[in-house]
């Protein structure tokens, strides 16, 4: 039997049976008894090989060098620790001898030699120590910088799936999405970047448009696919990066620049300008910062970090090279909603001329940009 077959044999034996226990009422004493019984039964099968590490390593590598693919960060941490271990150079290593009779004499001679050599060695070692300390400090600083950068680039545990699906903060206004879909000519294939749960894809279908989504959260991709919507699992930025210039005709984005790093907004608009065909169309549906109540509603979604003013967005698109940019406020409050709010706010706010506009202004804006 070859070594790999033998290993596979052990693997299958190791994973063979599961302990049949009541997991509702955990009794660790009972589990341990079951484990011990199982150990007694299987000991003879040879599934519990316990080799010393050196022997195990030799067996795996056949005495040669192992090929292991390591994460660069793990490699750096390891190297820093190794460097710490060897950075201190000293002549004060332990001196001993295994010989019982002449041993003490040998030790004495070694100690005398060391004492004689120490002043010379120390002068040499001092330079080496200084150099090692500088190298170590550089490595530690480098590692610290990487760890700090990683920490800063971590966006926190509340992702869109958790917020929208698990906590129920999704805000898909179907009518607005359908209005956005109607901005694209029929027959055009619209690409929705960051397609989320697929609300726009479904609205586009209802409006007789073809739409495909690009989404990087696997759970959201699965949800949309379960609704029979077409979604590609990819990071939208990577997706754009992979496309040749002037290869897109119709792109839809929702809440552009309202999440993640604000620098990504500029990158995204510039990349879109580069990838859109001439006369290609980008439609953006964003929150409008004009309405007080609309802003309040927008920030119910905990993944939202900021609102981008329509004038800012317009300027960015023009600056990136889009020829025509048009902004339309959408999502007006209905009469019934306004009446409900008025009742709630009665006695709290005195309604002046501008108050209704401030409170009940449009909640969203649609930006339509042509290349």
């Amino acid at each position, binding site marked *: 039997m070859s070594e790999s077959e033998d*290993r*596979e044999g*052990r*693997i299958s034996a*190791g*994973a063979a049976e*599961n*302990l049949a*226990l009541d*997991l509702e009422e*955990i*009794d*660790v*004493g009972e*589990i*341990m008894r079951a*484990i*011990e019984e*199982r*150990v007694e039964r*299987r*000991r003879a099968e040879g*599934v*519990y*090989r*316990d*080799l*010393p*590490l*050196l022997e*195990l*390593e030799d067996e*795996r*590598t056949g005495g040669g*060098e*192992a090929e*292991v*693919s*390591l*994460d660069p*960060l*793990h490699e750096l*941490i*390891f190297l*820093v*620790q190794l460097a710490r*271990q060897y950075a201190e150079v000293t002549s004060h290593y332990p001196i001993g001898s295994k010989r019982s009779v002449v041993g003490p004499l040998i030790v004495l001679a070694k100690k005398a030699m060391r004492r004689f050599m120490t002043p010379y060695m120390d002068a040499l070692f001092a330079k080496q120590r200084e150099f090692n300390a500088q190298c170590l400090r550089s490595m530690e600083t480098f590692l610290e910088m990487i*760890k700090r950068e*990683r*920490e800063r680039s*971590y966006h*926190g*545990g509340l992702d869109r799936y958790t917020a929208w699906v698990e906590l129920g903060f999704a805000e898909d206004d179907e009518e607005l999405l359908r209005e956005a879909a109607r901005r694209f000519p029929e027959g055009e294939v619209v690409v929705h970047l960051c397609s989320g749960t697929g609300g726009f894809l479904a609205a586009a279908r209802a409006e007789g448009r073809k739409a495909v989504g690009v989404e990087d959260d696997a759970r959201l991709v699965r949800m949309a696919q379960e609704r029979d919507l077409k979604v590609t699992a990819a990071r939208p930025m990577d997706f754009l990066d992979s496309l040749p210039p002037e290869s897109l005709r119709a792109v839809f984005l929702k809440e552009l620049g309202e999440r993640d790093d604000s620098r990504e907004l500029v990158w995204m608009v510039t990349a879109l300008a580069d990838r859109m065909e001439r006369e290609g169309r980008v439609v953006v549906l964003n929150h409008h910062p004009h309405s007080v109540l609309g802003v309040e509603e927008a920030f119910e979604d905990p993944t939202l970090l900021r609102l981008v003013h329509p004038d800012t967005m317009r300027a960015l698109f023009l600056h990136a090279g889009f020829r025509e940019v048009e902004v339309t406020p959408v999502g007006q409050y209905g009469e019934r909603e306004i009446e409900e709010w008025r009742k709630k706010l009665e006695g709290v706010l005195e309604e002046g001329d501008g108050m209704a506009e401030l409170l009940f202004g449009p909640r969203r804006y649609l930006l339509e940009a042509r290349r």
Partner: protein
Amino acid sequence: MGDKVAFIPVRYGPQVVGGAETLTRAMVEELDARGWPVEVITTCALDPYSWTNHFPPGVEKVHGITVRRFPTESRKYTRKVFRTETRMLEGKRVSRRRQEFWIRSVVTSEAMRSWLGEHRDEYRAFVFAPYLFGTTYLGVLEVPEKSYIIPCLHDEPYAYQHIYRKLMRSARGLMFNSVPEMELARRIFGDDLPGRVVGMGFAPYGADGERFRYKYSIEGDFILYTGRREIAKNTPLLLRYFCNYLENTGREVSLALTGAGHIDIPFSFRNRVIDVGFVNQRDLRDAYAAATLICHPSTKESFSIMILEAWLAGLPCLVHGDCAVTRYHVESSGGGLWFTDYPTFHEALEFLLDNPAARKRMGERGREYVLANYSWDEVVRNFEAVLEEGEARR
């Protein structure tokens, strides 16, 4: 008589890693926050192997608490010391005189000892930790009438030396970390040993496991080991068992090590054994939240802070069955499993990895146990009771 309570750990500071030191600092900071007049008297040492003076001697404030540092005597690890220590570890008889000679080589500070003698009247109590060091032995003998010890006792050959019996019986009271530790102390030093279980308090905390995984680039199931990496803590044993487990099962699971100390990881396993080194408290708590389970293979524990902290994050644990303390925690709470050899390690780990529902329930049980038994109110009440019992015996 002064009303200050002085804690005397062998090392002190936020950068100091170690169970007794962590426990002392937590206790000092909690008492300070509750308005107790506390101070710390300690050495200038940081490294637990060389014990060389790292911090400058004198008075400083650490998190608002007065810390007095005294230089240690340079350790002369002579042949005589080495032979004495070897005889102790082999369980051979060592004369009392030789024991007295030996303890003076295990971290002492003459400056600290004489300062204690001169300023004894300014303090209500001196609380020493842990039992093993010369600073504790000589300090307790200098001010026995006001001495209390947090022994952090393990079942180890040193504990059976006469000097430690003398030490324990000289103190006014002992503050144990767990019931098994107290039972061990009474078995070795006599049933009438004064003191009670005090331990350390824990409070629930928030943690983000994903943050740890992202920061340290760790994916999939992983077992967490945290603490010093050394033979005394059985880290090499865990590494050996884990590597053999990987080889025997072919499972895709990793072992993440945090903490100080060097460990030789076989090259071919380095993609599965991830050493992230020393991490700060936030990262450690995030690591508890990220891990699949925590493994604590040490057999010499008096408390095991890391298990209790990990339980607060709902993490089940796997401990060594030969450690009375950790096994006691696990059996009392139902928060994990134990192993005594490779086959039981293999099967217990397999069970935990295969049963997420059981893991979750064990983590919950552990959390309930910590919150019920180790609240700060309870700990401070017991601490005060030991002081009052000691004062009543004067």
